[in-house]
């Protein structure tokens, strides 16, 4: 389908059209928008980790002094509510932001560095991860983002680094504790080289030793380097020797910077970006082009994005990808013209969103594993996945029919512009009820693709 560059920019590189926002006209506008977005305040801010830790402390203090009385129950209830609201803000932010490409990149990196909330405490602190570890580095270097991620308490907890001790460290000996390989393995397998990369079990183990000492002050407090947990001596990872005594936090950072600029990481990440933004089987030349920019700039991300956007394959054959449920929900809210103003106040929106995403098969903060959500179109458009999308489209269609007097045909052309297929135009025109007309737009292939 031949569609305008502006439409590709809005749909492939953003969350779709919003009636009150002007879509980027093309490549230059997309890239220029990133700089503006980096300097703009984050829409719908959330509480940081430090404040969350303080509230956890207050809760603990209340339990110690007053037990599990009504004040304790009220505090805990409020914390649960805030956890849900903040998890929802992640998607709301994507929906209302005028900087679609920037938000898509944030989402890409947040998925690359997947975290999860497996219990109430983790769910309470998890929303702080993206604003603290991802956003500040989206326009920086990959090495710095990787370092921030590996030092963020939410990640250190999620991948069990907090319970890894050097087997010969003083704390390890005293407490009879040893290594936990989880974070080290995922850094190599998922975050940098990729599973096909040139590393062995011995590299995993040596990196796990190099990372010993990385921990968190009191549960979900600040990052802290515990020298007494660090394995003594040097470690050899990917053929290079790191560390030495006395152990310092920088030793692992040196490795992370090397791994970030590694040519295999460049290839892995170029392929991941091309797959995420263009096609499940991306143009090999596009991948090489991005990888070259990564190597040349040692993972300077704006240079990498430019390489993606300037390549002709980035603009060819749009709609090869499926919008994941979070993207579908964001695009739906945009088509409905939802603004940040609409989302202030009651938590009801958040509750509805959390339920909708669960039903659509992408529950917030509950990815299938540390490798994040699947990319393949076939993973999402299954009979059960499509059924969930049809139910969602039906509910929103009924809501729109009640709340707005727009003609569904008008809604179709506003939401999709020149991406609207004749089949969809025809089906919407033939819908017996207005609600079905709206629902058909939201259920259409072009609204579910990008």
């Amino acid at each position, binding site marked *: 389908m031949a569609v305008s560059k502006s439409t590709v920019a809005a749909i492939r590189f953003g969350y779709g059209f919003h009636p009150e926002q002007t879509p980027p006209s093309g490549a230059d506008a997309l890239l220029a928008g990133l700089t503006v977005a980096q300097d703009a305040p984050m829409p719908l801010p959330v509480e940081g980790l430090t404040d969350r830790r303080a509230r956890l402390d207050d809760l603990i203090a209340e339990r110690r002094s007053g037990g599990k009385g009504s004040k304790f129950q009220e505090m805990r209830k409020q914390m649960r509510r805030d956890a849900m609201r903040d998890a929802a803000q992640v998607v709301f932010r994507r929906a209302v932001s005028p900087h679609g490409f920037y938000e898509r990149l944030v989402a890409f990196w947040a998925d690359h560095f997947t975290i999860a909330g497996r219990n109430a405490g983790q769910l309470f602190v998890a929303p702080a991860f993206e604003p603290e570890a991802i956003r500040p580095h989206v326009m920086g270097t990959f090495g710095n983002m990787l370092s921030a991620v590996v030092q963020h308490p939410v990640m250190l907890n999620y991948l069990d680094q907090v*319970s890894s001790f050097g087997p010969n460290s003083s704390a390890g000996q005293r407490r009879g504790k040893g290594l936990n390989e989880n974070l080290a393995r995922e850094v190599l397998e998922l975050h940098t080289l990729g599973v096909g990369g040139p590393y062995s*079990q011995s590299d995993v183990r040596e990196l796990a030793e190099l990372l010993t000492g990385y921990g968190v002050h009191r549960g979900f407090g600040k990052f802290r380097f515990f020298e007494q947990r660090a394995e003594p001596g040097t470690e050899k990872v990917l053929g290079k020797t790191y560390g030495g005594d006395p152990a310092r936090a920088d030793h692992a950072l040196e490795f992370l910077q090397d791994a970030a600029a590694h040519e295999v990481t460049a290839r892995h990440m170029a392929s991941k970006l091309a797959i995420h933004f263009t096609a499940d089987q991306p143009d090999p030349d596009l991948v090489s082009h991005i990888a070259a920019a990564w190597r040349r700039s040692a993972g300077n991300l704006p240079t990498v994005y430019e390489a993606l956007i300037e390549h002709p394959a980035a603009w060819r054959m749009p709609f090869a990808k499926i919008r994941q449920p979070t993207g579908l929900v964001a695009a739906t809210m945009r088509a409905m013209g939802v603004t940040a103003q609409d989302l202030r106040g009651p938590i009801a929106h958040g509750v509805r969103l959390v339920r909708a995403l669960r039903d659509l098969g992408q529950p917030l903060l509950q990815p*299938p594993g540390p490798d994040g959500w699947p990319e393949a179109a076939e993973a999402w*458009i*299954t*009979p*059960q996945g499509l059924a969930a999308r049809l*139910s969602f489209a039906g509910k929103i269609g009924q809501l729109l029919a009640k709340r707005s007097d727009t003609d569904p045909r008008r809604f179709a052309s506003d939401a999709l512009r020149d991406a609207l297929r004749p089949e969809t135009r025809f*089906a919407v025109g033939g819908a017996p009820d207005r609600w079905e007309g709206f629902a*058909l737009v939201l259920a259409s292939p072009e609204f579910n693709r990008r």
Partner: protein
Amino acid sequence: MNLSLSRRAFLGTACSAAASPLLTPVVYASAPGENRLVVIILRGGMDGLGVVQPYGDPGFRALRPTLAKTPGTGLLDLDGFFGLHQEFADLSPLWRAGELGFVHAVSTPYRDKRSHFDGQDFLENGGASSDGQLTPARDGWLNRALSLIPGARADTAMAVGQDNLLLLSGDAATGAWSPTNELTLAEDERRLLSLLYAGDPLFTQALEGAAMLSDRTEGRANRETGMTLAQFTADQLNGPSRIAAFSLGGWDTHKTQKNALRRPAKQLTEALLTLKSGLGRNWERTAVIAITEFGRTARENGSAGTDHGTGGAMLLAGGAVRGGKVFGEWPGLGESDLYQNRDLLPTADLRRFAAWALAAQFGLRGSDLERSVFPGVDMGGDPGILA
């Protein structure tokens, strides 16, 4: 675009009984036989040594100072050598009835990288290469098996749950549905949707699957649990389906395994008990196998958990299995017995047992199983896991 229907023509179509694949009433022809197979994928790497503990092995205690149990400390004795973790206590009646068994010290051919994601793809793909390379078609072994079953149709095999199982993906048509789906499509809605999806094969195919299944399901589960997945599976197997698969996660017990194992154990236990009760008389003809991407380290790690390993255990259940027994060749746990001085040494390919289950339940030929379902597997003599 090729759509030339006018609005008027569309309305005409909508009012006629034009034949569309979506409108053809689903006819349940006689399915291939009465035997049934359920495959449960345990995601995250179930700790075979923790679930079926070799308490009779003199090396076990030293490897697992806090995790090793004995019948005196809560382990459920199975055969004087192995004991079942106490979180699975509700399965004891199945064991006693010969409807629950295990195969120990097994794994796929995948070695050394110990990646969940490669390991799971590999487990579901069923290939033979130790580096995790998938077979060229990148399809699932259960799908390849289905294509060998005479009379198999799209509703013979069902992937249950939102999880898109590689295990059942491939050329043979299969069904897929989640107990949490709610969808009822009136005929005119189906027609509108098939027009909407004209020209998009991915959406068209998914719609056909959804339409077929929306007729067959009543009620809707609020969420996917071992119980709701199993109840739905039982309903399908009591109908025209003979093969079903679903996955249960949560087995990646790196930390405080004592607690971490509780939830996945409960899910699996409830799933098995629900299958038995839901299948009623059909349970007699059912074999369930539960498999995982790898076992976990023989030694417990620094945080009272276990890391990614190699050899592990598979679970067998159902009236069709010859349970009450732990199958497999035990490699021992001495330092020189371990794989890379780290993991339980796999003494058999778990694909061999899956192949025998397919042979027993659906009459598949050994040569076909060894060539196309599990390329490179050596089925050897009948291990006798099925009655």
